[in-house]
């Protein structure tokens, strides 16, 4: 199919694989983090590990929206549905994220809570219009890619006076998470980043420049197609070999240095920085998430209802924290594939195939069996 096959060509992949093997110096290790779950998914789904030499190691980053959502945030949504009788609308993957008391939104729904799956914020607005007598809360999650649609929904609700609609805002910021990983005292050594694809279409490539300039880490922004990922890896290997650290853009067909100014303006109009936000695995990171500006307080579920965030400790056996920080691989977790599976996820990384554990379980676990 045109515009798809070109980015999934086995012939071109073989050429890139040969170039990577040729240019990666045998004597050194290349530890590259792909930040985004979309890249983790592409690497696993297309078996790209088989096209890399053993000294080029991909470390899965935390860029999977449901993976970084702490238990307390799901608890909060369940409480809104149960105690306030609200309809909670959210994206599909969020439904299976483990919460307290062995609950998920899906299980709470089976027990009678009104939880509805939506494909877009437009669907959530439609639910609110269809149920004027009910409170409808959109559980908003995701990085900078999903933030503009939430902002548009808030503006639309305000414009049409949709008084029963509100947002439980969990939008988080990519650069803040990258800072947290690089600033961690005993963090995993990283030689470079495969930079976000869709996030970068919104924020542009400029926000990554401090990682190159201040931390000396090469960043190559890459699309989500398998050839994009291979090409970005090749570009990173060149930067590492040359001792350079720059922000380079492999995804030029969609990303500019400035990003999408209009989307940025809408987000800025609706949201402001949170002083602190707790991430699953990464802990509390300052200025790493957004909340609605005071002007939109009526649309902010946290202010509208008495629904404070109550932190909850992760399951002790679960290694999602270490995995999200790149310190462990999924197969290093004691409960990977035994207690924790995609059907019964204990940790959030096992929920979506963008999560490191689910991606490895679904596509790659034959590697350990064969070893």
């Amino acid at each position, binding site marked *: 199919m045109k515009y798809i096959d070109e980015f999934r060509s*086995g012939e071109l992949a073989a050429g890139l694989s040969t170039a990577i093997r040729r240019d990666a110096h045998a004597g050194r290790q290349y530890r590259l983090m792909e930040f985004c779950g979309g890249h983790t998914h592409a690497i696993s*789904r297309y078996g790209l590990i*088989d096209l890399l030499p053993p000294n080029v190691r991909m470390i899965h980053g935390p860029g999977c929206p449901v993976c970084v959502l702490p238990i307390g945030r799901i608890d909060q949504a369940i409480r809104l549905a149960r105690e306030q009788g609200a309809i909670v609308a959210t994206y599909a993957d969020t439904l299976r994220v483990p919460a307290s008391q062995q609950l998920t939104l899906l299980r709470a729904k089976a027990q009678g809570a009104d939880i509805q799956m939506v494909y877009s914020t437009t669907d959530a607005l439609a639910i609110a219009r269809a149920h004027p007598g009910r409170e409808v809360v959109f559980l908003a999650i995701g990085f900078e890619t999903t933030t503009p649609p939430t902002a548009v929904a808030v503006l639309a609700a305000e414009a049409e006076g949709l008084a029963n609609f509100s947002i439980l805002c969990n939008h988080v910021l990519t650069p803040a998470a990258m800072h947290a990983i690089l600033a961690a005292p005993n963090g995993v050594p990283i030689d470079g980043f495969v930079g976000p694809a869709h996030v970068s279409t919104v924020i542009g490539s400029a926000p990554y420049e401090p990682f190159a300039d201040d931390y000396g880490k090469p960043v190559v922004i890459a699309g989500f197609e398998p050839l994009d990922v291979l090409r970005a890896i090749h570009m990173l290997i060149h930067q590492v070999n040359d001792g350079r650290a720059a922000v380079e853009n492999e995804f030029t067909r969609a990303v500019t240095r400035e990003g999408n100014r209009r989307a940025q303006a809408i987000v800025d109009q609706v949201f402001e920085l949170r002083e602190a936000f707790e991430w699953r695995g990464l802990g509390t990171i300052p200025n790493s998430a957004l909340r609605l500006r005071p002007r939109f307080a009526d649309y902010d579920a946290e202010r509208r209802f008495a629904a404070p965030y109550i932190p909850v400790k992760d399951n002790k056996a679960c290694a999602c924290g270490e995995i999200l920080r790149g310190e462990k691989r999924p197969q290093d977790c004691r409960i990977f594939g035994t207690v924790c599976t995609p059907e019964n996820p204990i940790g959030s990384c096992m929920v979506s195939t963008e999560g490191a554990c689910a991606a490895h379980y679904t596509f790659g*676990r034959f590697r350990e069996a064969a070893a």
Partner: protein
Amino acid sequence: MSAPYVRPLDVKRGRVDLSHGSGGRAMAQLIEELFASELANEYLAQGDDGARLGRPDGRLVVATDSHVVSPLFFPGGDIGCLSVHGTINDVAVMGAEPLYLAASFILEEGYPLADLARIVASMAAASTAAGVPVVTGDTKVVERGKADGVFITTTGVGVLRNGVDCSGAYARHGDTVLLSGSIGEHGMAIMSLRENLSFEAPILSDTAALHGLIATLLAAVPDLRVMRDATRGGVATTLNEIARQSGVGMLIDEAAIRVRAPVEAACELLGLDPLYVANEGKLVIVCPPQRTDAALAALRSHPLGAEASVIGRVHAGPGNFVQMQTRLGGRRIVDWLSGDQLPRIC
């Protein structure tokens, strides 16, 4: 037979009401004028609660299948022909020749009789084309909101061909895996309708009775190991079922699996993997390696198998995974589906 009804059924404007399931005159009229007239055959004409059939020479195979597809009419078919094809295929993949069908309808109060008549006509056409009559049936009506228009359960009876012994448990190391054609068409025909996706050429469901193709195949290669129609959960699910039942692994070649461009485009748009999308007229076959060429030639000689290909082989390895060599040159697992990808697809 002269009907004891004053006025004929108003098929044009009428709707199913509760009296159509009451056992009274209205029900008798519905069955007579809407069902029996279309599906007419000597067994239905017996007019009894069941059908008296001849005793076939051989072991019997019985299969049953409920159909709850939504929407009821879709590009390339409808619930009527689907309910005939689906059950014929379940009997046929056992290596049996399908002989008879039984059909049971659950109708929702308020459903237009005109649409019901279209469904029954489509069933009758599919049954006649396949040469497998509907010999007995049942109709129930439930209140509005307790069903979604029409649900149809069909049961099929067939007789096993001499010398044929196929089972999902018989795949062995070294066997080849064949696929009768392109994948994902039924599921995406329905999804594109539900999601309002339109393409230059619409995606048509591949719903078809496969017993003719299977007869051709078994005539050439009676010692096949496994046949299965790759319905719900798609080819990936069928391969995993066979691998688990037989206690083997498989290695599949992604490049050998045919996906038509509109199906690929729709899957891409909706974030679905065509390997997991339902088919209603595609066969997965496991075959002893030395019989591969004969099986492939037989499949390709039939219109429903013209695009058949060898997609991989069976191996016994650690973990017995179904693995795939990707087009990119890497390897990955083709796992069981996790969660529900597409509800109410058949």
